[in-house]
């Protein structure tokens, strides 16, 4: 427990937290969300001095301070957190706590923590190992094969079942090499991370991997960035209209955003080999403007907005890999009321590149959003008068760090320019492009679908398309007796309705006709099994 005065500094915390991890930023900027679990890993190393200072002022140990702070931060009565000098051990203990449904903050080396970790089952251990494998895979770790690893996990599971070992405790005396020989390198590595019982014996700096891989992960302290292995940047595209602190971008610790001041020098104590995937908060570049006199016409606003965009584009926090998905243009009117104009891009948009064309695309999209917002505001105020704007601020509300492989997509390397152009066109349009195609479905209203139909066998349905009208009604409209009177019908086709949608295996059929009504229109109408007539389309 962290209550003892000589409790070790909890270098790593594994915290059970089902929601947003932003709250944990109060502890450390170095966070990691553990895949497949409701666990967050906090590396407290960078703030150690800060916490120690605070603790000293409060007359407590740093460990006690963290223990007090955590429930308040999480706002939950039952806190489940485990501390250890290695992230893997913190995770193992947290998992063991979860298995036994034990709450509190326990340390790996505290007596109760020791008892609990001894109670950890192989299923819990393997679950963690498998989730670690997900991280390894996402990092494209060399010499890591997901299938092989899964097979080794199964081997371990089977072997432990045969041994009658419910948890790792029975094999506590075994060396990592014994596991490597039996179940492969990675199981051996995990065993090495979790096995040492004596904190003094933990190889904190030595590489734990005697054979392979030589340098499994990113020893960021020792390898210059330029020489670090290329790895993909994880990207999580925020919701197009969302934003705020809850949105997140996951990237490795040195993924491109500048390091925060307090972590400028990466700690040499970082565990070598551990697949740490940092969770980072969003930063929000912003540009305010106060107008000399009120303006309301787009033509007057656009040049000024372009200036602000240009300023945003050279924001020092703005990195080449970053793309905009949403801008929020916060307008202040002369009555001090505010209107938020959300400029959303359909595809990640490169502000810098757009600068070369005078922000043509951004301004186009902004103009649509501006017109919509103004129309809405006028409707809301029941006013026909234009609304004068006195000031604004424009900020990046949504952005992503693109994968390095996306570089080509945006034309940097000059390949696939057609696609880039198409995406740019879509970004410049007021409405998105929609593509439809025939699909192999006999029911008329289902026979056209948005593009990306996988069917390539369309001969029958092309035939159908020739016989059917160009214009459909969204839903069939009942035809009255008056409309039918004097009409002439030519039978076209008979289709069965989709019984599984109606929930009745004997659901009916439709007989389609070309119906010439008294007004000379060629309607596409059908008669159902009960004899009722419906209009379903119109021939050109």
């Amino acid at each position: 427990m962290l209550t003892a005065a000589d409790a070790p500094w909890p270098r790593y915390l594994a915290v059970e937290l089902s929601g947003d991890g932003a709250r944990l930023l109060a502890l450390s900027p170095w966070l990691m969300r553990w895949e497949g679990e409701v666990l967050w890993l906090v590396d407290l190393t960078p703030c150690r001095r800060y916490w120690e200072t605070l603790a000293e002022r409060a007359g407590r140990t740093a460990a006690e301070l963290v223990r007090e702070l955590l429930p308040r931060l999480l706002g939950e009565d039952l806190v489940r957190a485990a501390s250890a000098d290695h992230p893997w051990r913190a995770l193992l203990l947290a998992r063991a706590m979860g298995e036994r449904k034990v709450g509190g903050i326990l340390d790996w080396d505290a007596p109760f923590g020791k008892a609990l970790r001894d109670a950890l089952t192989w299923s819990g251990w393997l679950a963690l190992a498998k989730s670690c494998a997900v991280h390894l895979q996402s990092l494209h770790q060399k010499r890591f094969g997901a299938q092989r690893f899964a097979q080794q996990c199964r081997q371990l599971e089977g072997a432990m079942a045969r041994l009658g070992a419910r948890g790792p405790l029975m094999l506590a005396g075994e060396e990592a090499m014994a596991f490597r020989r039996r179940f492969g390198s990675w199981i051996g590595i995990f065993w090495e991370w979790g096995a040492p019982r004596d904190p003094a014996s933990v190889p904190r700096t030595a590489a734990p991997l005697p054979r392979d891989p030589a340098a499994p992960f990113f020893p960021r302290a020792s390898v210059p960035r330029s020489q670090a292995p290329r790895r993909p940047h994880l990207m999580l595209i925020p919701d197009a209209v969302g934003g705020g602190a809850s949105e997140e971008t996951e990237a490795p610790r040195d993924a491109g955003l500048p390091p925060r001041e307090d972590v400028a020098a990466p700690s040499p104590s970082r565990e070598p080999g551990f697949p740490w995937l940092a969770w980072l908060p969003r930063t929000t570049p912003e540009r305010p403007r106060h107008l000399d006199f009120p303006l309301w016409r787009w033509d007057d606003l656009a040049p000024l907005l372009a200036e602000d965009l240009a300023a945003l584009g050279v924001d020092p926090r703005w990195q080449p890999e970053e793309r905009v998905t949403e801008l929020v243009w916060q307008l202040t009117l002369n009555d001090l009321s505010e209107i938020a104009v959300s400029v959303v891009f359909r595809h990640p948009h490169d502000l810098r590149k757009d600068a070369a064309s005078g922000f043509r695309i951004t301004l186009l999209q902004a103009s649509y959003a501006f017109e919509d917002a103004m129309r809405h505001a006028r409707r809301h105020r029941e006013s026909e008068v234009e609304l004068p704007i006195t000031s604004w601020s424009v900020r990046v509300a949504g952005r992503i760090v693109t994968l390095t492989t996306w570089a080509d997509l945006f034309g940097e390397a000059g390949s696939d320019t057609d696609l880039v152009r198409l995406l740019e066109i879509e970004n410049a349009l007021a409405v998105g492009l929609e593509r439809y195609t025939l699909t192999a479905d006999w029911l008329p209203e289902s026979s056209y679908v948005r593009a990306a139909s996988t069917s390539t066998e369309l001969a029958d349905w092309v035939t159908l398309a020739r016989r059917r009208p160009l214009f459909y009604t969204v839903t069939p409209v009942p035809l009255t007796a008056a409309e039918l009177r004097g009409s002439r019908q030519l039978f076209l086709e008979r289709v069965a309705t989709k019984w599984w949608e109606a929930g009745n295996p004997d659901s009916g059929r439709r007989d389609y006709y070309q119906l010439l009504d008294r007004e000379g229109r060629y309607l596409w109408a059908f008669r159902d099994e009960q004899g009722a007539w419906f209009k379903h389309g119109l021939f050109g």
Partner: protein
Amino acid sequence: MASSADASPGWNEWIAHTNFSFLTGASHPAEVVERAVALGYKGLAITDFDGAYGLARSFRALERLRKDGRDGGMRLFYGAELHLARDHELPVVWRDTIILIAQSHRGYFNLCRLLTEAHRGGKNGAHLPLMEILDEKAFDLEDLVAIQPMRGRARRAGWTPAAELELAARCAEVKRRFGPRFHLALSRHLHPSEDEGLQPTLRLARALDVPCLLSQDVFFHHPDRKSLSDLLHAIRCNRPVGEVTAQHFPNAERSLRDPAGLARLYADLGPVQKAAQAASAALSASIHFDLKELTYRYPQEMLPEGHTSQSYLEELSWASAKERFGGNVPEKIVTLLQHELTLVGQLGFADYFVTVWDIVRWARSQHILCQGRGSAANSAVCYVLGITAVDVSEHEMLFERFISVERGDPPDIDVDFEHERREEVIQYIYRRFGRDRAAMVANVITFESRGALRAVGKALGVAEVWLGATSQVLGLRELRQSEPDDALGEAKKIAAQKGVAEDPATVPWGLWGELAARLHGFPRHLGIHSGGFIVTDRALEWLAPREPATMENRTVVQWCKEDIEALDIFKIDILALGMLTAIRKCFTLVKDHYGKELTIAAIPVLDQPTYDMICRADTVGTFQVESRAQMSMLPRLKPRNLYELAIEVAIVRPGPIQGKMVHPFLRRRTGVEKIDYPDPRLEPILKRTMGVPIFQEQVMRIAMEVGGFSPGESNELRRHMGSFTMKGDLSGMIGKLEQGMRKNGLGEEFIARLMEQIKGFSHYGFPESHAISFALLAYVSSYLKQHYPAAFFTALLNSQPMGFYTPHALLQTAQHLGLEVRPPCALRSRWETTLERRNGERAHAIRVGLHLVSSLREESARLLVERRDRAGGFGTLEELLRQGRLGRVDLTALAAADALKIFGVSRRAALWIAEAAAFTEFLEDADVAQPAELPPESPWERATADFKALGTTFGRHPTALLREQGWCYRPKTHTLTPAAKLTQVRSGRNVVVFGMVLVRQMPPEAKGVMFATLEDDTGLINLIFHPQVRQRFRALIDGLTFLCVEGRIQNQDGAYSILVQTVHAPSLSAAEVVPLRRDALISPAASLAQERHLVNSRDYF
């Protein structure tokens, strides 16, 4: 052909698929035929995909109608639609196919040859390229009509000019080969995508001068089957129905429509319609083939020069009789043989007997034990030929049960062979007669309740959790036969109990149930019959096409047993019997270890120690009389000769039990009730069973004697007993029997009892001959158990899987009998279980073989034994690791079974070493052979590990362990009554017992009563659960390996059962300690009590 002016135009439908176009056609053949007849069709061509699967059933349906005079004069045309490319995954209308219809028997043979050839590539994806069909050197197309349906590649291409050209070129080729027998089929389905080909087809017909036929291109008999049709497409594609719309037909027009409507449909074609009408009529007139023409002959090659099959059979029979009886054939046998041979000659069945004799003779020459059973054991010919082993001179056999003149049906000889060597016999038949003349009978696998619900549910996109819940429900015996709707109701309940998160409202329960009910009974695919064989004197294609079966080296004809029987085609049943294998292996062991050469015939028939053992019900492991019910009957019936043993075998069957024959017989047997006969004429029939009818033959003879039945009629009665119903055909027969018996003055009570028994036989009843055949094997197995128990149990273990009990139960029984059982050992065991001479004694110990070690491959184990023998044994574990060269899986399997213990390595250490098997080559510089410091196994860990690795334990019995160290039930252990003492408890007393579940049984006729056999460290415990008790404690009874029950003991004549009143649940609270205590976490004894899979009990639900 139809004419719009004609009020009753009639119609020849040239393309009709039944549900034997597997997972495509949506109607049973009978439904298609009946509707066509009802609509007044003149003719109907059955054209299933790539086979003749549905032809026999269609024929049978029409024959039934014809028999009742309701066929309307409709004709059936026999054909098939043949895939020309392997494009079965495409929608039906895009597949490249051609339809072939037989005009004569020759044409039918040609069709079957093409179909057989189409299946040459394997079970799935049957097809034959058109160019091969048209190859004059390859196939004879005489008397075959070809019809090109208006679909396929051209339609797939959208009837483009190029596609039309290609089609025209192809049709020209077909016409060149088929001449005027080639037709084009025009179809109209009120849909543009399907009518698109109408004009191109007409153009083609004109250009090539090919007649057109009109067809609805039928895939279901009635429009209301459209939904089922869609569903089948979805099931075939293994995707939800909404995702395979391309596979569906757009509307329900591909069904049989009334001819007047069809005439209107095609009326606008004018002269084309008239021409098609004429072509259809001409084609119909040119077809003169019916399945009735199929004739069958047995192979003749085994007949010596100058012999007919009859003369050869007679010669063989008399010679064999002389040989069997040493030249002095008993008068009775002579009379029987003369009678039977005359009858066989009249009916022309001699070929059949000679063929079966030939097969049996070959099996004997290969030392494969075999024995005929069933009605064949009524035959003296079968007896003297060695096909059956029941001496007809000693029993009153009813030959009419086997063959009757009136019936004229082919006789049915079932021959059992050793189950491990039956394949040799099967392959011999293929070799002997050639694969073109011998094939096994198919078995049509249909959608049953569970399968139908699962398939429909999946096609409707029902979540897996609901599918699982439904399957779970249907896994239970009482719901297996239930209607799908009931099962769905139960599934809802189970899902609710389990707290399934998915909203049940999202499941289309009604639709699911309704469609599953519609799908129920539909054929799914073709399987293989358990042993039915057809052999013919000429190519099988004269009867039916052949195709490869799923099992390697086997071929099947495309018809099932019922189809074969309906067409009067003979089949031979080559069956497998595990006990024959065990007996043969036991004979070998006795010869090798005891120096005695035994045969079935050489075993003394009245060995009293054997009968003493049988009367004590000490029959675990023996044939037939080892079940719970049999064992409880043996001490009461006390059989003392073979016939009484036959009665024992036959009486514990649903027929006699349901017919309430058991207790009257027992009362008469023990002298409590007087033996009387309802009529003096029945005395000879019922005398041997003390006035109580027990066997099927007795019912038949009663029917003949006092019911006014002829032998043929009585056999007809017997045949219908299997599907007894008071409705339908049998009601007349039953009425006649009742009437006959009344007329003969039999009492109402006897008549009612006999009727009850006939009903009982509908579930299961034995013919006398069959019972005697089985009794003989029961006696032989008992004799071996009594006199050579070690060899007997060894042989049983080496013949697994077979019998009623698990290897564990057999080994426990052997140990209770005082035999020494030695565990598997890497240095001592061979693959099979063997006998080892005990030191300084004449007795033998059983050394369990490596075959019982779970996950150990036979090939590896045999190699290990071979290398061990070659090396003169392994001195150390390292030697075994180096020289045994076992892989990780095999080594861990051996270690898990504690077979490496002989090297002084504990199981856990051995397992840890075995996991590093890949590193054995680095033994000198690695820790591979160094045992890890692992904690020793506790006794219950040992028991658990033993059961997991071997299915049994050689340590203390787990029930003893639980009793002493992990007791977690409410009753105190001192109140428990061990199995060995139960026979001493007075009947009616309450007892508490505890044991491991070996067998659970719920016979259908028991009306919900469940029987279970437990085992403790002293013996077996018999339990009976009444339905209420079972329902109340169902989770415990069905789920747990160990049961602690309380109930009243019923003890009668040395047989006892406990009528369970309470089942005690294990409680962890009594045994669970502080959660973090190490031993509690690793091996809580109480968790063993809650073990659900420690022993795989044999459940008969």
